[in-house]
């Protein structure tokens, strides 16, 4: 019974990755839209793109971590 709860909890925790997916998709979509409008400025913003990606992705990774903790550490 306890294990059942673990599995349900881990499955629910993975839902958080959907939010990170929306965020990361949004970042790259906006970058691409901006880059197509002004291709000469695109390369200069690559570091900011990666920074935004990393910060957003961290939240998805946190939900993966919660899922893994529920499965293996609780």
């Amino acid at each position, binding site marked *: 019974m306890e294990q059942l709860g673990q599995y349900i909890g881990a499955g629910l925790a993975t839902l958080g990755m959907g939010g990170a997916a929306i965020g990361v998709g949004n970042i790259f979509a906006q970058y691409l839209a901006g880059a197509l409008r002004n291709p000469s400025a695109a390369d200069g913003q690559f570091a900011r793109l990666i920074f935004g990606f990393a910060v957003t992705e961290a939240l998805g990774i946190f939900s*993966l971590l919660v899922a*893994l903790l529920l499965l293996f550490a609780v």
Partner: protein
Amino acid sequence: MDPIHQFEIHPIIGTGAFAFTNSALYMAITVAVISLFLLLSTQRRALIPGRWQSLAEMCYEFTASTVRQSAGNDGMRFFPFVFSIFMFVLVANLIGLIPYTFSTTSQIVVTGALSLLVISVVIVYGFAKHGLHFLKLFVPHGIPVFLLPLVVAIEVISFLSRPVSLSVRLFANMLAGHITLKVFAGFVVQLAAAFGALGWVMAIMPLGMTIALSALELLVAVLQAYVFAILTCIYLNDALHPSH
């Protein structure tokens, strides 16, 4: 077929807390590979660089331009620090991709130690250079006074979550990538074992997926090393110029 099995640490020499483990062995290999690569490739310095020398120069220039862009010219005093971290994470990630090896960056202990080192350098250097003015980092300009307690609390929490997110990002990316690879590689064996000759034909799909995932993991390995380096630069930038 346990996908977690590959992350197990077991002692090679000695026992207990001070044993020389497989994780320590691969960290030593990583450092040895970096040292040999950089020493041998820059031994015969030519004006027109050969293949190895241009690879070493590319690593140097890439990191140098990253540091200059995100921490400014006075950030270059931290170049050796950022370069060491970048090369260590990059080579550890790449070595971990070779089958039957151990990926040290998939251990939270290793990435946690790296990110604590980064944050300690930021805090110690920030206080050493700016004294108590370093605390201006938590007080942004142009905020109404009645909002200040809330904003300062948010800034402090965001600063404290940096080492956590820095270490967990690298660790979880490597862990998730290796688990996914292992699971899809396991499907190949399971299909072949369950359906015989038909299973071998069906196993082409997960095998193709494994190859595609390996390519993705190669990208992730380089990208996460770059992300680790650039976040280090951004945090160091806070220590160098705290008031904005």
